[in-house]
């Protein structure tokens, strides 16, 4: 039996470990776990974000635990719960926001729900169709007093809070053309947006916030003016109809534009209020309508009626508005010469800034300027027609070069008095009537009738056969003449004359035989006595000479030169007349003349002349024979006696000789002074004209028509003579001359007429332009476009609704 060996006795020594030794290291594990859990819990709590509350009227699409809150498209938080506010009026959305962002959520923070949006300006938020809506926030980059409750916006704001720029408020009376998001244009570039227009608290005006992006906001100062560009404008002017469209967006949504017309304004700050004007022109004019702007008040005393001038009418200087008529009143003036006098006092307010002075110019500066201009440049006030249709007047400061010296009455009350000049009031009715009358008075129809008659007459003359037959007639005339010369009677004339001479020779011979010489001596003696008498008479010559000189002086005094001038002019006129086409008819007359001459020459009376001549010679011969047979010498003696007595008579007459001589001299002198050269020239011109006439085609063509019958020519000549065609032509020419003179007279007044017409057109243009801006057509077009815009808005809202709730298409809701 083998005993199982017992193991060696164990050396057991119970230890005495301390508390720390007995504590297991495993205890670190729960400690670490606890620490880790606590850390996780704390971390989770710390990072869960700040709870904020956003109140929305419409929480469409927002889901608890799902909808994100984004800032600049980065998720910064999440909606935790959605509940109703008390009264169920609003939806309260609780959201956790990243704690690093939360301090920025101050009072300027805004939240809105981003949904798909389709508008004129574009499509936005398309990504939310799939992912669902999210809440977008906007705030500036500076932490402020942190807020925990916000009111959400129903529409995305046009301008984000953190956007650089300036937000201003615009005030207008009519917001019909303004829509949210409408562009703000500056020189045609979009620089900002309008927010939603709102009715002001008092309901009197519409205010709309506008945001202008940086850096364009620096263009806005307190002197900036905004106006409604209203989509498009139609202006009717002298150049036709002009259609101006700024942009498609502004066509549909409306829009405004601005400009800083005058420099020197203060920079604007957020929230500054501006007026919105209906048009650019009004906006620009309004710059000077600031009631705070200092104005220079002047009084003008107009004579006569100022009907048509109203308070508010413009005061213009060189066509530019410089002020306004502020008051019209009648005022009694005490005149030392004429006694009390009622004058119409017009008070005008002139804006110094418009007179070219600087912005800081005071009314006193303007008064000094105007006083100087009145003195040096004759500046005067006058009434001019502003609108020829309505008859409205305005006051013009006019630099009248013809004005008499005048001064501004600086001492007058209540305001200095500006001197006036003649008014330039145009009555359109009278002007038009005058123009029409002048046009009506032009004898155009008579002129035309005369001209037509003249042409007809000339045509007839030229076409007449008689003209072409004139050479034939002349040839016939020459032949007739030759026949006469060649006639036997004519041939016999020389022989008979010789016989007469022979007989005279015989008579003279007889006279020699009858102591004719002695008789002649007596005669000569008598002549000597006569000469002596003449001699004696010549002793009276000095007196005669004086008379002659007086006569010559008298003759010289005669306006012979004028006479010659007139004669020359007459010749010139004749010349001109001959040169006229009227004288083209002269050939016919000439032909008629030649014809008549030929008839005359061909007449038996003329044929009988040689016979008669010969018979006369024969009779003379008979007489001489008779003389020879009678006591010719005795007769001659007695004749010489008669000659003697004649000499005595001459002697007697010689007494009058000086006077005769003087007259002859005067005549000679007068003849010398005659403008013979002019006469000759005129004559030669006349001849030239005649030559030209003869050389004219009509005359050249004469041979071509030789075959035409003489009878017709004669008949035509008779007609011409009887019908008085030339007279008619002359009368026609006279009428034409009168008409021309009338036209000339009218033309002389044409410049003035043209000037007035130009002024008329200018005024009409101005009127049309002033009417074009606010015409009924324009208004109706605008209203139509507004209707279109409303329709577009409706479509837009429908699209928006569908995109917000796409399933409504399916569900039919």
């Amino acid at each position, binding site marked *: 039996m083998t005993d199982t060996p017992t193991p060696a006795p164990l050396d057991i020594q119970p230890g005495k470990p301390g508390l720390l030794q*007995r504590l*297991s290291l495993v205890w670190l594990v729960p400690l670490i776990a606890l620490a880790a*859990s606590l850390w996780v819990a704390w971390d989770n709590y710390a990072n869960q974000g700040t709870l904020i509350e956003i109140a929305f009227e419409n929480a469409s699409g927002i889901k608890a635990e799902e909808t994100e809150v984004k800032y600049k498209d980065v998720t910064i938080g999440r909606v935790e719960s959605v509940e109703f506010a008390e009264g169920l009026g609003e939806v309260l959305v609780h959201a956790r926001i990243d704690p690093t962002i939360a301090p920025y959520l101050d009072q300027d923070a805004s939240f809105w729900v981003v949904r798909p949006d389709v508008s004129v300006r574009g499509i936005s938020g398309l990504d939310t169709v799939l992912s669902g809506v999210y809440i977008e926030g906007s705030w500036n980059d500076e932490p402020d007093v942190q807020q925990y409750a916000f009111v959400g916006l129903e529409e995305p704001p046009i301008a984000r809070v953190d956007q650089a720029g300036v937000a201003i408020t615009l005030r207008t009376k009519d917001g019909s053309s303004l829509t949210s998001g409408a562009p703000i244009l500056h020189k045609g570039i979009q620089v900002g947006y309008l927010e939603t227009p709102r009715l002001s608290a008092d309901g009197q005006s519409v205010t709309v916030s506008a945001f202008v992006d940086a850096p364009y906001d620096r263009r806005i100062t307190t002197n900036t003016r905004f106006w409604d560009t209203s989509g498009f404008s139609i202006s009717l002017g002298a150049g036709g109809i002009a259609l101006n469209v700024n942009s498609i967006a502004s066509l549909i949504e409306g829009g405004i534009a601005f400009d800083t017309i005058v420099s020197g304004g203060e920079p604007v700050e957020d929230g500054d209020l501006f007026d919105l004007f209906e048009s650019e022109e009004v906006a620009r004019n309004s710059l000077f309508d600031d009631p705070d702007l200092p104005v220079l008040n002047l009084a003008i005393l107009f004579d006569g009626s100022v009907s048509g001038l109203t308070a508010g009418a413009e005061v213009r200087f060189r066509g530019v508005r410089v002020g306004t008529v502020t008051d019209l009143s009648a005022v009694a003036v005490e005149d030392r010469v004429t006694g009390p006098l009622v004058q119409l006092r017009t008070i005008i307010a002139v804006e110094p800034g418009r007179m070219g002075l600087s912005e800081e110019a005071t009314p006193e500066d303007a008064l000094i300027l105007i006083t100087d201009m009145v003195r040096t440049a004759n500046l005067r006030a006058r009434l001019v027609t502003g609108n020829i249709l309505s008859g409205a007047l305005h006051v013009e400061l006019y630099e009248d070069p013809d004005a008499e010296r005048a001064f501004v009455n600086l001492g007058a009350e209540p305001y200095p008095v500006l001197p006036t000049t003649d008014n330039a009031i145009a009555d359109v009715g009278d002007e038009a009537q005058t123009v029409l009358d002048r046009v009506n008075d032009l004898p155009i129809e008579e002129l035309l009738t005369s001209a037509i008659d003249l042409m007809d007459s000339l045509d007839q003359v030229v076409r007449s056969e008689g003209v072409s037959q004139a050479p034939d007639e002349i040839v016939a005339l020459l032949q007739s003449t030759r026949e006469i010369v060649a006639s036997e009677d004519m041939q016999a004339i020389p022989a008979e004359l010789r016989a007469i001479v022979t007989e005279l020779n015989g008579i003279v011979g007889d006279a020699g035989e009858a102591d004719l010489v002695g008789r002649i001596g007596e005669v000569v003696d008598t002549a000597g006595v006569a000469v002596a008498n003449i001699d004696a008479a010549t002793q009276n010559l000095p007196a005669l000479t004086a008379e002659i000189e007086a006569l010559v002086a008298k003759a010289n005094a005669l306006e012979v030169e004028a006479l010659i001038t007139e004669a020359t002019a007459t010749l010139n006129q004749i010349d001109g007349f001959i040169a006229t086409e009227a004288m083209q008819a002269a050939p016919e007359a000439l032909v008629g003349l030649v014809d008549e001459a030929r008839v005359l020459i061909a007449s038996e009376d003329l044929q009988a002349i040689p016979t008669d001549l010969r018979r006369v010679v024969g009779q003379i011969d008979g007489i001489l024979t008779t003389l020879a047979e009678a006591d010719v010498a005795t007769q001659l003696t007695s004749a010489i006696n008669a000659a003697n007595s004649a000499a005595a008579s001459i002697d007697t007459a010689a007494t009058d000789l000086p006077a005769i001589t003087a007259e002859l001299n005067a005549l000679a002198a007068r003849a010398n002074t005659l403008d013979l050269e002019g006469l000759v020239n005129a004559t030669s011109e006349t001849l030239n004209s005649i030559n030209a006439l003869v050389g004219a085609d009509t005359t050249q063509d004469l041979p071509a028509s030789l075959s035409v019958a003489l009878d017709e020519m004669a008949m035509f000549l008779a007609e011409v003579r009887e019908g008085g065609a030339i007279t008619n032509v002359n009368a026609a020419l006279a009428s034409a001359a009168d008409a021309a003179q009338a036209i000339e007279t009218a033309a002389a007044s044409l410049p003035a007429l043209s000037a007035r017409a130009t002024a008329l057109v200018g005024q009409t243009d101005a009127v049309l332009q002033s009417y074009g801006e606010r015409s009924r057509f324009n208004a109706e077009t605008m209203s139509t476009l507004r209707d279109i815009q409303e329709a577009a808005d409706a479509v837009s809202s429908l699209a928006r609704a569908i995109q917000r709730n796409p399933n409504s298409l399916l569900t039919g809701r």
Partner: protein
Amino acid sequence: MGTARCARCHGALQSRDTQSLQKVWAWLIAGVILFIPANIYPMLLTNTLVEKSESTILGGVVDLVHHHAYGIAAIVFVASILIPLGKFLAIAYLALSVQRRSVINMHQRHKLYDVVEFIGRWSMIDVFVVAILSALVQLNTIASINPGIAAVSFALSVIFTMFSAQSFDARMIWDADRTAT
């Protein structure tokens, strides 16, 4: 030195691990601590194109019930909530009973210990599901599943509980009986 050593292997010789209960309690407390965030924080982070959801264990069970998946809901509920809780309670009960040297129900307690030790590993089902889903469903923006803090916490909690069970020396159940006799 006061510690007996094996003459052959020089290992420290000890009839009872005197720090056994300390270890049990330490691991148990750690497991309980981590079990809290495991149920508070999301287990699964699910991102899809249209939504992003986080689900806790209990939330998942509720969802499953809402979707009338009662079977799966029951499995998840039992495996992820009932069993861990039961283990905590069982281990705590065993440890307390040992400390108080209770002599009643020694056989049952030993069986309980065996069950606890056996069943502990099955509690990791949830973690496996999360791990598999996270690995499989990674489709970028369209859909993705990620483990949340709770997944880590839950896994640690289960592991710590298993350590706790391992630390328990079942012989101590019977020690009380010996001392009593």
